[in-house]
Each structure stands twice: as structure tokens, then as C-alpha cells.
């Protein structure tokens, strides 16, 4: 009879009198060599009359889990066909492992069935899930609105030192990255403008282009996106891990609202810092433009800055700062929302941080589009 193939371990089958099938296990069995198939045994059990399976391990060398896997599937086949298994021929260690593997019967319903629901069912579940998520978003926003109301009436409870720390982390410590990104953005805008304006010999208008673009829209937008990646993700990760360590539960059972104690200072901190960062970013962007104007376009610094001051109106500055504050609220809300919704494992904290950044950026871009439309309609 042909051996059941394996690179090193082998199982050969032989019939003995009285309906006994002897499985001869030989060679050295290791997981590295793969787990031999029990197909041969299955065919043998189906094709001939067998009432008992015995084992002969005379030629068996070293073995590991691969032989146990072979034996458990053999034993399952035997059970299905009501054939007795006689483990007497197996080494003692192997007999005990086999007994251990089969000691606890599989719990009904414990094995999770792979979801092969009909397509329509899955769409339905998706809709229900989306609906629930939307409801929990709305619930959060409603609570936040109430909390902000209490804050404005001076009745919200949170620690001033927390707020100060958050102001430092999300405001002051963001300065280097805001400097770098907005300066380079101003520089890029200046180059784009210069190429077009040089053809008319009107390079001085680079100052108008960079100034108006930065102050009206780009300064607030790019600072908002930086804050989404920096503070939004940080807020989600902080709140998410506080959920994992039950710190939020501890607040709730002390009847301290996590909304007031954790979410509010974060929203307030970003709402305070974003206008300042936006103004700062605007200035850095204009400097970036001036750098190009002075070094590449032969404009004098004074000339460039005067031209910028002429072009940029007060309403541009106010509009830009207003947009910045709105983006700040959006980023902080998205970060805290996703943090509060986080699950209780370390991977869900990561998901919460990712989701906070995505939600924050999408919210900023949508708001930016709405502002562009509204400001245009209002003629600002």
C-alpha cells in the first residue's frame, strides 16, 4: 500500500485480521515538513470493512504537533464512521496529548461562523450600523452643546491646570510645524504666481496673490489640517486609552462628567489657540512669499510688504481668523468624539486616532467649501 506522503514522517496503512486497520507511523514528524493528509485513511475507511484502528509506532523517530494534528483528524474520521480507535500502540506522551485535545468537547456556538449572509442582509446591517453611529455622533454633539452652555454660564467643572497644559500642547508646541509648513506654502504660492505674472512683467503682484490667498483661506486651512493631524489624533488617543484603563469609568462613577472634565478643556483649548495659530501662519506665509520676492524676483522687502498691506484688507484677516476658529472646534470635536467612541482594546485606540484625523480633515474641507460659497455670495 502506498505511503501517505510527507517529506519525512510517514503513515502507512495495513489490514490485519478481525477488521483491524493498523496505521504504521514512522520517520520523524515535524511541522516544518507539513501535516500529512488523512485522505488515504478516509478512502480506506470508506472502501473496506474496518471496525478498529490500531497504531504501530515501532519506526517512529522524533515527533511534534504535526503527528497530533494527523491523529486528531484520524480520530475524527473514525468517530464519524463509528470505528473504535485503539491508542495503545502510541507513545505515552502522545496518548495523553490526544486525550487532552479531545477532553473538552467543542462548545456549541463557540465557533464563530464566517459571515456568509446574503448580500441584502449585509447591506441592511451596514445601514443599521451607520444609523447607530450617526445617532451616537448626534448624541455626542448634543451633549457637547449642553456642556458648552454650562461652560458659558460658568458652571462647568474642569481643572484649570488641564486647560493650561492643553493650551501649551496644542498651541505653543505646534509653532515649529506651523512655521515650517506655512512658510513653505507661502513660498510655493509665490513661485506659482511668479511664473504667470513674469510674462506680464507684473511680478510685484505676487505679493497680492500670496497675501490674499494666505490670509483669506490657506493660512486657516493648512493650520487646521496640521492641528487635525497633531491635536485631533492626540485627543482621540488620550481619550481612547483612558477608556481602556477605565479612567473614564472612574470619572463617571464619581459623578464627574467626562464631557466637562475631558472634552470641554480640549475643545476650549483648540478654540482659543486656532485663531492665534492662524494669524501666525498667515504671517509666516507672507514671509515665505517675501523670501521668493526678494531673492528671486528682485523686489525690495519694503516694497513687497507695502504691496501686501495694500492688498490685504481687514475683512480678509477677520474672515480668515473666524474660519480658523471654526476649524479648531471641528478638529477638537472630531478628536474627542472618536476618542469617546473608541473600543476597549489597544487596536481600537489606533483606529480612533486614525478616524479622528480623517473626520477632522473631511470636516475642515467641507467647511472650507461652505465658507467659500457663503463668503462669495456675501461679496466678502
Amino acid at each position, binding site marked *: 500500500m502506498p505511503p501517505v506522503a510527507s517529506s519525512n514522517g510517514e503513515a502507512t496503512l495495513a489490514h490485519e485480521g478481525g477488521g483491524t486497520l493498523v496505521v504504521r507511523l514512522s520517520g520523524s514528524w515535524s511541522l516544518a515538513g507539513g501535516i500529512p493528509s488523512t485522505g488515504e485513511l478516509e478512502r480506506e475507511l470508506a472502501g473496506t470493512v474496518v471496525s478498529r484502528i490500531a497504531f504501530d509506532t515501532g519506526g517512529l523517530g522524533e515527533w511534534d504537533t504535526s503527528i497530533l494534528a494527523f491523529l486528531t483528524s484520524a480520530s475524527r474520521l473514525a468517530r464519524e464512521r463509528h470505528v473504535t480507535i485503539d491508542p495503545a500502540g502510541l507513545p505515552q506522551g502522545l496518548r495523553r496529548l490526544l486525550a487532552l485535545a479531545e477532553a473538552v468537547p467543542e462548545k456549541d456556538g463557540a465557533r464563530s461562523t464566517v459571515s456568509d449572509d446574503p448580500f441584502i442582509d449585509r447591506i441592511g446591517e451596514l445601514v443599521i450600523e451607520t444609523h447607530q453611529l450617526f445617532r451616537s455622533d448626534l448624541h455626542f454633539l448634543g451633549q457637547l452643546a449642553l456642556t458648552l452652555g454650562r461652560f458659558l454660564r460658568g458652571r462647568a467643572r474642569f*481643572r484649570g491646570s488641564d486647560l493650561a497644559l492643553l493650551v501649551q500642547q496644542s498651541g505653543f508646541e505646534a509653532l515649529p510645524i506651523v512655521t515650517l509648513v506655512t512658510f513653505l506654502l507661502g513660498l510655493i504660492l509665490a513661485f506659482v504666481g511668479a511664473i504667470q505674472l513674469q510674462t506680464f512683467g507684473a511680478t510685484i503682484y505676487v505679493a497680492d496673490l500670496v497675501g490674499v490667498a494666505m490670509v483669506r483661506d490657506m493660512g486657516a486651512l493648512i493650520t487646521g489640517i496640521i492641528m487635525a493631524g497633531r491635536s485631533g489624533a492626540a485627543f482621540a488617543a488620550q481619550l481612547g486609552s483612558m477608556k481602556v*484603563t477605565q479612567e473614564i469609568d472612574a470619572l463617571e462613577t464619581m459623578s464627574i462628567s467626562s464631557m466637562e472634565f475631558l472634552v470641554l478643556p480640549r475643545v476650549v483649548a483648540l478654540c482659543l489657540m486656532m485663531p492665534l495659530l492662524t494669524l501666525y501662519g498667515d504671517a509666516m506665509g507672507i514671509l515665505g512669499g517675501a523670501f521668493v520676492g526678494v531673492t528671486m524676483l528682485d523686489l525690495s522687502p519694503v516694497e513687497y510688504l507695502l504691496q501686501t498691506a495694500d492688498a490685504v484688507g481687514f475683512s480678509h484677516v477677520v474672515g480668515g481668523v473666524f474660519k480658523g476658529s471654526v476649524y479648531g472646534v471641528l478638529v477638537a470635536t472630531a478628536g474627542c468624539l472618536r476618542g469617546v467612541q473608541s473600543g476597549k482594546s489597544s487596536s481600537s485606540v489606533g483606529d480612533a486616532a486614525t478616524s479622528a484625523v480623517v473626520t477632522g480633515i473631511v470636516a475642515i474641507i467641507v467647511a472650507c467649501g461652505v465658507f467659500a460659497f457663503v463668503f462669495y455670495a456675501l461679496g466678502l
Partner: protein
Amino acid sequence: MEGRAAITVRDLTMAYGDFVLQRDLNFSIRTGDIFVIMGGSGCGKSTLLRHLIGLNEPFEGEILYGEESFTRAAPARRMEMLRRIGVLYQSGALWSSMTLAENVALPLGEFTDLGADEIREVAALKLALVGLAGFEDYYPPDISGGMQKRAGLARAMALDPDILFFDEPSAGLDPISARLLDDLIIELRDSLGATIVIVTHELASIFAIGTNSVFLDSESRTMIDMGVPTELRDHSEHERVRRFLRRGEL
């Protein structure tokens, strides 16, 4: 000691979505008891504790504090009722951005009219009660797991609660620290007159300190027995309870 009921659980069914974890739970915890909620892993002990302290909502049934329904109370009233309890979470759950003293001081600052100096003094006193004198200015990650638990206990006791809840207090502690924590729990019950509710499956603790208990069974998904732990061990009519309390030997 026959006290009045501090907590009554009435027809409680706990479920996650459609999945019923435990049903038809009916028992009461008398004042002055050290009440043990026990059962095998995954039977819903910790979930029951979360229901008792309002972190999960009952699927059916209600929970009463004294004579008053906690489940049906208005949110503001619930907040007031929660101020009478203290919870020691399994991981300690100290606020990691605050020092130990600040952790203990926070509830004091929120719910009492004490001045800053008095609060600092009371916080130091509570920490001293759990053997952490001198550790006021440490941050939670800088101290050992056993110390974090004791600090968590100091915080739970900050407002002198009537009822203290412990979620697996001895999990992750060495035998001696676990024993010291057990002694501390008895000491607190006797000196503060608090009612203690403990979720645990540590047999040594259960027998050493439990004065009453309920056994949650994961197979029948309900409570199958209640009483003094040592009596349950010797005389429970349920084989599963006796087996549990004798480490599987009958």
C-alpha cells in the same frame, strides 16, 4: 449581623445586544456585609458590578439603593446617589495625568467645601490609611501595580462612601499584597461601617473575608446559589458551586 438592605437587585437581566449574559438575578446586599460576587471566568461578574454602579443599563429589572430605585432615578438624582459609593477598578484606573494626591483630592475638591490646604491634608491622610504616606507626589505609572491598587482604594474612600465596590482586587497581586489588601478591606468595613461588594474568584479571599455571596453560573446563565461562602463550600446543593469553591475537587 442582620442589617437592612443596602442594595437590592430585582429581576435583573443583563444583555449585550441580543446576547443575554445573566437573567433573573434577585438578591440583596445587607449593610455591613462583605458581599462576594463569584463565578467562573466570563460568567458576567464584572458586568454585574458595572450594572450596580450604573455604567451599564439593565436589559430588564432594576437595582435599588436602600429603598430607592437607582435604575429609574433621574440623572441628577443618580449623580447624588453615586456620591455615596466608591469603586476600586481592576486596573486601579487612577487618572494618569495627576499625582496620587491629586487623584484623591479631585473628588474632595468637587464635592466638598474644603479649602486647598485641608484637601491636601485629607488626601495625604487617605493615602496614609492605605500605606502610601509620602507618595503624594508620585504619578501612577511610577509606582507598582499593588501600590496603584491601594492608591485607587484611597481615591475610592475619599468621600467616606457607604458602599465600596471592588473589581477583582487581588488580581495581579502577589499573595502577601493580596492578603494585606484583604485585611485592609475588613479593617475598612469595621472602622468605617461601610458595606463592601467584591467581584472575585480568589478562593482564599472569598473564604477569608466574605460574609455573604452570590454564585453566577455561566451555563444556566443565572444565579444558582447564595449564602456564606464557607457554608456553600460544605453544603451547597449545587455540585457546580461546591466544585468551584473546592478548586474542582468534590
